[in-house]
């Protein structure tokens, strides 16, 4: 049982995190725009998260925290 927390305001919508999630649960939230003007990344189905932290590892803007 793991959890990822996004500091959305830091997100630049680069999508790198979405390419590395083994569970494919990281997606871009095209409905919202942060103050920087980007669609932030987010996680759907958090319960599937295994806390591997790949998303956080590849995020260039240190947006993601992972708990496990």
């Amino acid at each position, binding site marked *: *049982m*793991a*959890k990822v927390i996004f500091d959305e305001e*830091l997100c*630049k*919508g*680069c*999508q*790198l995190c979405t*390419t*590395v999630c083994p569970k494919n649960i990281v997606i871009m939230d095209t409905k919202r725009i942060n103050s920087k003007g*980007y669609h932030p990344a987010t996680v759907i189905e958090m319960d599937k998260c295994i*806390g591997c*932290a*790949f998303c*956080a*590892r*590849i*995020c*260039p*803007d*240190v947006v*993601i*925290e*992972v*708990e*496990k």
Partner: protein
Amino acid sequence: MAKVFERPKALTDKPFHYCPGCTHGIIHCLIAEVIDELGIREKTVGVAPVGCAVFAYEYFNCDMHEAAHGRAPAVATGIKRVLPDNVVFTYQGDGDLASIGIAEIVHAANRGEKITTIFVNNAIYGMTGGQMAPTSLLGQVTATSPYGRDPETEGHPIKVSEMLATLEGVAYIERVSVHDIRNINRAKRAIKKAFQVQLEGKGFAMIEVLSTCPTNWGMTPVESLKWVKENMIPYYPLGVKKEVD
């Protein structure tokens, strides 16, 4: 629940100014984690380059110098000679280190200065808007190689790590990449080693990190990682170029 990933202490809270998906950010994060893990933040002095990473002095949570373009190794030498017990590292781009600063890096390496250099090779001049770097690949179109880099007139991309590895004073040189998780983890191990080499007083250590410039490459961040894998790594083979123990 325990944190398995959080912002390293050796980074300030300041958000990076880098473009979306620029891997400068990943490399910053790795260096900061290594500083935390080695518990050397309090005695570390960093030297920022002139390049997109010029603001590194705002991101690394330790004492910092902002050097003149290409001269970081000379600045680091001055610092290290005054503070031999501190840990001194430079963070330099490929224009900074391989072009204008090649003399300073060659001689710091040859003197065996006990410093650690993180060499970020993104095959281009990012900050000034995408001019050719000595590391730009053959055929690569840039602002100053509009018809693609031509070996006849501009020469071949320079392999700095292989060149410096010929020098006696070098204790450790490795080339790494951050285009996927496995390589990011390898890169971190290499960077950690490069700091340990300094702590052990063995000599000069440098890690060349293949990095991206989505903005000036004209690609998405995801395409950029692919470009590193498919175009840069074949020309710039990863691995240890020199190691003394």
